[in-house]
């Protein structure tokens, strides 16, 4: 299967743009998340410092928790854990959920103390989110240090900040889910509108790109199509084209010039040869005719008559070759006039009936079929097809001729029963000098040019001649010609 260049161009450019777009989104998402985490860390530290430096009473804990939840932008106080331990053994307070976080109180507690002030920083737990890390260690004589850590709690990722105040140690921890969900919500909403839009724009852009690339290609294709339909002496103009296409056009024009030269030479040669043959043929035919008229001797007359037949055959081949070479050179000179094709066919059928036993030729010819055609060439064309049917008919075989208007064209079918013909032989029917039936050893007259000439004449009139599928012992030819305007 071949896909169009435009489609491939479209798909490739769309894929590239979509890939770049998703890479940008992924990178953006990661850095956005980092930034978000950093903000959260800073806030946690600030809040831990505030909790550690301001004394709170036990009954103010609920107020402190809701206050912290708002400041840290958490959904509820359930996503928050706070603890304050005074050094002097004063009243400590902690969130209600603190007791449920054994990780925080037991395991991480001991682990956090040492790395808090000393190097190296602790490795985050293996299942901690990748963003979990320590802030830069505080300067030795700067403000009191703040330590950070990540941990697992209730199946979620949490982030904790610990502040060593002069009178005690305060710890504030927040559920990362709330922060992340806020981020996800914001980014998700953005992506939901941006991604489809981006996809549409990508598709549009890719289509535009493909069209832009295809435009000169299409222009070339149309121009090349026109050139080959007209004649080989046409050239494409490269004015105003891009450099790559200029080179392509130049190469095409060079090829066309070489083709024209060799083609012109070949068809001129056969046209010249055919024309040069006509004078000697005329002399030969005239002389033989003269000799025949003067001769009294039966046997000599017999000889001369046979010679005359051969000269006639030679003249016919010459004429067909001349027409074929004109057709090859695209110079088949049509003298178009309105031709009543029905009448022409009726005449031919009348002639053919003389050579075919009664009932073996069936003709269905619709009346008043007319074409704009060269009368002489059209007669030659139909005559060739009829002669072909009569000549290659198997003894006693049927011939069918049908002419009608079909789908805006005139269709003429010639069918005749033959000896069985192989498909390989059928494929050669339109070859020049090909004679069918050679394998049967049956002598078949004719130049072997009839069908190829018929095809050229049909095409020159904007029609076509085709071999139709049929049983092996039948030949069906279909000629289609454009209907004449009124």
């Amino acid at each position, binding site marked *: 299967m071949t896909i169009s260049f435009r489609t491939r161009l479209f798909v490739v450019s769309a894929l590239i743009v979509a890939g770049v777009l998703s890479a940008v989104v992924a990178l953006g998402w990661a850095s956005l998340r980092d930034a978000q985490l950093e903000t959260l860390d800073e806030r946690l530290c600030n809040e831990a410092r505030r909790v550690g430096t301001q004394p709170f009473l036990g009954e103010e804990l609920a107020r402190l928790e809701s206050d912290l939840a708002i400041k840290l932008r958490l959904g509820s106080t359930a996503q928050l854990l706070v603890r304050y331990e005074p050094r002097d053994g004063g009243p400590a307070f902690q969130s209600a959920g603190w007791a449920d976080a054994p990780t925080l109180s037991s395991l991480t507690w001991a682990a956090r103390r040492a790395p808090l002030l000393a190097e190296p920083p602790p490795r985050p737990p293996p299942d901690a989110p990748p963003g979990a890390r320590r802030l830069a260690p505080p300067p030795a004589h700067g403000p009191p240090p703040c330590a950070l850590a990540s941990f697992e709690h209730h199946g979620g990722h949490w982030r904790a900040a610990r502040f060593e105040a002069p009178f005690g140690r305060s710890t504030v921890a927040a559920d990362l889910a709330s922060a992340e969900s806020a981020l996800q919500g914001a980014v998700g909403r953005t992506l939901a509108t941006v991604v489809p839009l981006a996809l549409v724009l990508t598709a549009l852009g890719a289509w535009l790109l493909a069209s832009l690339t295809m435009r000169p290609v299409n222009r070339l294709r149309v121009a090349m199509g026109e050139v080959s339909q007209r004649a080989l002496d046409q050239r494409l103009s490269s004015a105003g084209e891009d450099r790559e296409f200029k080179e392509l056009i130049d190469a095409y024009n060079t090829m066309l010039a070489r083709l024209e030269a060799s083609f012109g030479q070949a068809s001129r040669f056969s046209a010249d040869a055919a024309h040069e043959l006509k004078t000697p043929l*005329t002399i030969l035919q005239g002389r033989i005719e003269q000799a*025949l*008229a003067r001769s009294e001797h039966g046997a000599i007359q017999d000889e001369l008559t046979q010679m005359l037949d051969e000269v006639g055959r030679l003249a016919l081949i010459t004429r067909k070759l001349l027409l074929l070479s004109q057709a090859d050179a695209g110079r088949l000179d049509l003298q178009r006039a309105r031709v009543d094709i029905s009448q022409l066919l009726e005449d031919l059928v009348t002639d053919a009936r003389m050579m075919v036993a009664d009932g073996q030729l069936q003709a269905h010819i619709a009346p008043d079929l007319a074409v704009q055609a060269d009368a002489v060439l059209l007669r030659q064309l139909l005559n060739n097809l009829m002669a072909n049917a009569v000549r290659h008919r198997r003894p006693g075989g049927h011939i069918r001729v049908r002419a009608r208007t079909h789908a805006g064209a005139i269709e003429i079918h010639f069918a005749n029963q033959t000896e069985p013909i192989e498909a390989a032989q059928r494929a050669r029917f339109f070859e020049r000098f090909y004679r069918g039936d050679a394998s049967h050893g049956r002598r078949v007259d004719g130049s072997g040019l*009839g069908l190829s000439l018929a095809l050229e004449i049909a095409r020159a009139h904007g029609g076509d001649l085709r071999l139709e599928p049929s049983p092996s012992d039948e030949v069906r030819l279909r000629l289609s010609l454009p209907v004449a305007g009124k």
Partner: protein
Amino acid sequence: MKVLLVEDEPKIADFVCDGLRARGLEVTHCLDGNAGFELGQQDRFDMIVLDIMLPGRDGLSVLKGLRAAGVPTPVILLTARNELGDRIEGLELGADDYLAKPFFVEELVARMQALRRRLAGDRQNTVQVGSIKLDRITRQASVGGRLIDLTSREFSLLEYLMRSPGQVFTRSQILEHVWGYDFDPTTNVVDVCIRRLRAKIAPDDAAAGASPIESVRGTGYRFGPAR
């Protein structure tokens, strides 16, 4: 009938002159277009046979010049070049008929006679040989006063043979005249047509062997006994 033949190829001119003279025509021959134009302007020819490919001035130009000078003499063109184009151009320029090379002198004569008849106002529109009578206008044939039904090919064939009773016509000549030069000569259509014609024109009481159309063994056919 006085004929002017303008043909540059001497060998062609040779047998055409011979053939036309053998049929009692008076022929003047010249070799090039300029001479043809000079002679053609003299009002002494009944017919001009003009080759298209001529040295000096080509046939179409001669024809154009003659018609421009008001010469009404009928012209038959001989074409060998791109015959399709020349044919139409020639007829548009005022030629009365054309003949493609190679051609039979017999056919040239038939065309000349037909042309003369046409231009003379169809005075001789009937041909009669023996009991067979042809009307060229209505294209009806009768044998002994009895009308017979002929196809157009059969009529043309009978008319062609009856033009020169006793003269032998070959199948090729008949084919060219009746079916035209683009008809494939390899079929035996002439023989079949002759057979049908014989059956149709046979007098009711005549034996099959006594047909007026005689076969000349190996050569062709003639109407009536040899001259």
